[in-house]
């Protein structure tokens, strides 16, 4: 079984039928997705999975990636951090670099004459080249709840020219004169990162990294990014390890648009020192089966984000029925109801406290994981994401309406 039909065992036939019904009403519509990276990071992952499904239901979907040099991606990283609330500002030089790259990309990308779907701030300025009669959507995957005002104003002048903006959590929405829509991201249960894998495969991956499969393992899977607080995880682990025999694994890769990653990796290794129970591992972007195996081998999974767009690794871990301890930021509270489907924390000490609790109360930990898996099944699988986007494309012809009859 391939394509949409392969999702029926997870979500039911009726859900698949709904998607095909929506696709029938969008048959032949052209939707051009544009983002800034083809590999690494949640956006590229989602587009890789969604594009074939859009096409299967009848939408003529395409995907273009903008280009930019080191200077451009350094500026976009500054913008990313500023929108996440860090007190950084753009210099005139930064703005010039950003505008120049936008102009260059506008010359090189042939823009759709139907629907243009822009992902995140990097390509947002392409709206300058909007053709009459086209629909433009800006999809923001970033936590915009407390952005740096100057940087948001810089971006806002473009965002206001779109037909609709899409956010991952309600608290990210801003005061805007355009429609704003909530679409949470999703995970793909069929992807190498999430599909079922054999026990021997899990053990092979774990032992290849020097991890002892017979001892408890606490893991954080994420890019080496300060906003994911990997150093805070090491500190929380050290506090918990005083009373529990356990190992820590920090595993992730660096995306092509994240020049800060290498520096954060060095900081983590320095902080880990010579402790043989702390494993800091950088994997290539496509090491999905390895990530899957490491999540499945874990006793407890951490996502100690300080700011977060959504935190897809939380849904990944919950789908594997793992107890998750995560920062109560961004879209994470949508995925975890505290003490019901996981644990939400705010501090290093709190994270450490719950690591100890979950290691010592395996029945409670198992119940959290099972509830989490069901919550993900209902709300955070790829089919729900596809459905929301199809609805959004249809909504572009009904902006402002609340009851829409499609036949």
């Amino acid at each position, binding site marked *: 079984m391939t394509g949409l039909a392969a999702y029926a065992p997870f979500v039911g036939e009726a859900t698949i039928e*709904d998607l095909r*019904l929506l696709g029938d009403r969008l048959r032949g519509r052209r939707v051009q997705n544009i983002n800034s990276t083809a590999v690494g990071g949640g956006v590229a992952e989602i587009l890789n999975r969604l594009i074939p499904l859009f096409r299967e239901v009848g939408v003529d979907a395409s995907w273009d990636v903008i280009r930019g040099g080191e200077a451009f991606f350094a500026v976009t990283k500054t913008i990313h951090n500023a929108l996440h609330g860090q007190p950084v500002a753009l210099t005139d030089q930064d703005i010039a670099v950003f505008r120049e790259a936008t102009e260059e990309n506008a010359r090189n990308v042939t823009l759709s004459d139907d629907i243009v779907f822009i992902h995140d701030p990097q390509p947002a300025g392409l709206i300058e080249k909007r053709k009459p009669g086209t629909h433009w959507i800006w999809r923001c995957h970033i936590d915009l709840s407390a952005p740096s005002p100057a940087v948001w104003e810089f971006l806002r002048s473009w965002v206001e020219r779109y037909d609709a903006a899409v956010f991952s959590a309600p608290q990210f929405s801003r005061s805007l004169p355009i429609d704003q*829509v*909530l679409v949470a991201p999703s995970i793909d249960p069929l992807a190498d990162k999430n599909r079922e894998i054999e026990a021997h495969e899990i053990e092979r991956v774990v032992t290849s990294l020097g991890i002892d499969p017979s001892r408890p393992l606490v893991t954080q899977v994420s890019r080496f990014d300060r906003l994911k607080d990997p150093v805070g995880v090491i500190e929380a682990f050290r506090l918990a390890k005083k009373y529990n025999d356990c190992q820590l694994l920090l595993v992730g890769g660096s995306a092509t648009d994240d020049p800060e990653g290498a520096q954060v990796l060095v900081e983590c290794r320095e902080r880990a020192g010579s402790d043989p129970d702390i494993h800091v591992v950088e994997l290539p972007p496509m090491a999905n089966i390895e990530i899957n195996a490491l999540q499945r081998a874990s006793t407890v999974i951490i996502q100690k984000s300080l700011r977060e767009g959504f935190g897809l690794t939380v849904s990944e871990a919950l789908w594997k029925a793992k107890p998750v301890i995560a920062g109560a930021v961004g879209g994470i509270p949508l995925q975890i109801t505290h003490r019901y489907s996981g644990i939400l924390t705010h501090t290093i000490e709190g994270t450490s406290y719950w690591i100890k609790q979950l290691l010592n109360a395996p029945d409670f930990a198992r119940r959290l994981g099972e*509830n989490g898996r069901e919550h993900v099944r209902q709300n955070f699988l790829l089919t729900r994401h596809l459905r929301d986007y199809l609805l959004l494309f249809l909504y572009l012809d009904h902006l402002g309406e609340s009851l829409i009859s499609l036949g």
Partner: protein
Amino acid sequence: MSSVARAPFRFFTRLTLTRLTGWRAADLAEMLEHLRKAPGSVVFHHTHHFLVQHQHLSPEPPNDFAFWVTNVLQEDQLGERLAAIDTIQFPSLHELRDRIIAVIEEYLETRQALRTAPQGEEFHFMDAVSFTLPTRHQATTLVEFGQELGRVGYATISYHLFEARLRVGADDNDFSCWLERDLGEHDLAAAIRRLDPYTHTMEGLRQRLVSLVERRATAER
């Protein structure tokens, strides 16, 4: 032999896109201020989305207003009163909204000070944009009706059972209406009318409906 309906029951699906209003409330006064101007689609979102999002939970979590008042403001007494609002008895979303407002106002009359939500835990008002589409499922007899009820999605069941009444303004739920009008099934229609969809999971509700229909179809034979 089963009776054949004068007109088939055509099952529709209802799919919802969530629109963000940008309105947020940090205390009960702000919540009331937004509620007073909220259209029915906003009230619908906050009193019904739990039904579909938490299908595995029983009992169902209460409506969003009750959940926030209880868990964030920690006003347990008011939270309990809001959770106990009998949604099914209200013929329209505006009347449901007015009842929610009245419950909060009554409570505030006895209170001196307002509690404020911690930063980041404000109530965010959202809006349900509903799309309805016909599915390939239809039934002309009770047996077919029971079979199709077992196949359609939760969104279809919730649409016909309470959304059409609340959002489109129909007098009755679609199932009871068709059973009575096109099959003359007055008792079955009444039994479905008596179901309280707000105290079942969606799967529990489906099983209850299928069981009622199958029992009647067996008796008819």
